[in-house]
């Protein structure tokens, strides 16, 4: 008997399902945190999942590529001899009720870290994780996933994709891994009838119409950045507004710059990698004192070249923005993606 491609689960049964998932793995889901914000975080109890949230203040990045991540430990058992031991995180994780833009962010990270040579630390975490997406019904204040081709519904890339209907959730199965999340609680799910799958298409169309606002002018920006047609004065203007706080890099689901540092503990110790930002002045500083990007303008330019140029889009199969809107909140100088692309298109601040 062939297995259904989609299921339904009633809202009242979600908690029981999450209870099952909690037995299988660590569950990371939207959770109401300090001050009433919602953030993806570890949940210990099904009641903690904020099903009706709009968006999370942080992306999933830190669970797959942590802000500080141990790479290896060294020990000196004898006089001269050293022993090295890499540190891998093999915790099973289920990312639950994740917005499509953030799933797209993870898929972007997948492409970055699976390029040769594969990043074993990221890949190990990723192989031990499952992605349960929750489609969007209402655009959030700062959202522009539609412009970035990263939501509000996903075609693929998820293990399961949930869509809220009136009293039920439609559950589309993307992968066998997704199916395995349903299997232990199968009695909570019913096969989805065809009309429900059709209803889901109607919802998608309806939502798409509501997301239709044009928030980010990527086309013009992509072309101008690719061919280096953005006047220096424009980069200068944006550089003047940049405080070099690195906030935009840290909140961004697709930013992956890191540095590496050693932490000695007596004779032993460990090596970590830490998030870095290409906007910091010491990012390219060499020991000789030479700094190829000594001017902040060149750093702002490098950041947006990495995110917007066709060269990188071709390499990474997408440009480096999923339209989550977090840099709008993070940047005090309004060097956020929609504003920057608009400035580039207009040719003026």
């Amino acid at each position, binding site marked *: 008997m062939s297995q259904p491609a989609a299921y339904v689960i009633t809202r009242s049964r979600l908690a029981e399902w999450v209870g099952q998932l909690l037995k299988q793995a660590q569950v990371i889901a939207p959770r109401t945190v300090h001050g009433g914000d919602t953030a993806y975080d570890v949940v210990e109890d099904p009641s903690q999942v904020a099903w009706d949230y709009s968006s999370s203040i942080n992306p999933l990045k830190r669970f797959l590529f942590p802000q500080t991540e141990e790479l290896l430990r060294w020990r000196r058992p004898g006089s001269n001899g050293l022993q090295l031991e890499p540190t891998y995180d093999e915790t099973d994780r289920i990312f639950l009720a994740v917005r499509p833009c953030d799933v797209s962010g993870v898929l972007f990270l997948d492409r970055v870290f699976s390029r040769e040579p594969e990043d074993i630390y990221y890949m190990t975490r990723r192989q031990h994780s499952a992605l349960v997406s929750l489609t969007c019904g209402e655009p959030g204040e700062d959202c522009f996933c539609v412009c970035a081709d990263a939501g509000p519904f996903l075609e693929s890339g998820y293990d399961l994709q949930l869509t809220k209907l009136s009293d039920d959730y439609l559950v589309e199965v993307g992968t066998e891994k997704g199916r395995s999340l349903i299997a232990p609680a199968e009695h909570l799910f019913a096969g989805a009838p065809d009309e429900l799958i059709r209803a889901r298409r109607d919802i998608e169309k309806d939502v798409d119409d509501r997301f239709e606002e044009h928030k980010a002018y990527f086309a013009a920006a992509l072309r101008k950045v690719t061919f280096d047609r953005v006047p220096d004065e424009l980069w200068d203007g944006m550089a003047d507004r940049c405080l070099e706080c690195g906030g935009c890099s840290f909140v961004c689901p697709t930013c992956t710059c890191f540095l590496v540092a050693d932490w000695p503990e007596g004779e032993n110790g460990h090596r970590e990698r830490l998030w870095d930002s290409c906007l910091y002045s010491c990012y390219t500083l060499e020991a000789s004192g030479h700094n190829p*990007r000594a001017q902040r303008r060149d750093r702002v330019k490098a950041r947006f070249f990495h995110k917007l140029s066709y060269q990188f889009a071709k390499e990474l199969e997408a440009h480096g923005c999923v339209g989550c809107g977090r840099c709008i909140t993070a940047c005090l100088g309004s060097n956020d993606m929609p504003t920057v692309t608009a400035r580039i298109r207009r040719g003026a601040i």
Partner: protein
Amino acid sequence: MQNAYLPDLAEIASIRDETYDTRTFGLRFVDPARWEAFQYRPGQFVEVSVFGVGEAPFCLASPRDGTDTFEVTVRSAGSVTDALHGLKVGDQLGVRGPLGNGFPFDEVKGRDILFVGGGIGLPPLRPLIWDMLSNRGDFGKMTVLYGARTPGDLVYKDDLERWRGRDDVDFMVTVDVGDETWTGNVGVVGTLFPKAEISPETTAAFVCGPPIMIRFVVRDLLSMGFAEEDIYTTLERHMRCGVGKCNHCLIGDKYVCKDGPVFSYRQMKTMMDPG
């Protein structure tokens, strides 16, 4: 899946003082099997770890010869390099590599070869010079021009003597500022060009040194009539991972650690460098 960040252990087999601030370390892998797999070409580099201090990139400075060791030449410049200078024979450190692309070799067979090295720019050229000398018949006229700030800044004094003694290479040295014992050329390395017999149409040039020296030498070579694709140089950038992940070494869309560090001047010109 291999771990691209996990170094192999190596021990210091020899230490040689080059100048007041530069030393050459002979390194030997603790696991002899690792040496078998460690096939590299000149122009490639390694990331060397001093555990507890950090990691830094150094070019492979010796040809892969009959021994089981390889050399890196390190100028004391900051935390990792200073710590390296504090180590002694027998101490262990970490090595990742070989990394990067390396110089063309087969591609320039049959051509005349010009090497221009400035100061600490000689280490990447040294294994290439020796490899070409070992296959001397495959190349046309060979010229090595080397410049340093003062006589005290010249590295590889043994090699310099051996190259000077050979009649199948044209070898010249100059210093920016001489001292009381110096009787040789004085002036920047470019001042040697008129003294050397170079035919730009038949020659491939390999240029390594500080950024300012590269800029002037490339300008001179172009005005002598060198084609842009016949001038090769290595780029230096702040590096962290050495494998195209951390983004520190990016110039436009090129990773110096992965697509480089060797580039032809033709490539360099098209690389969009914001800085």
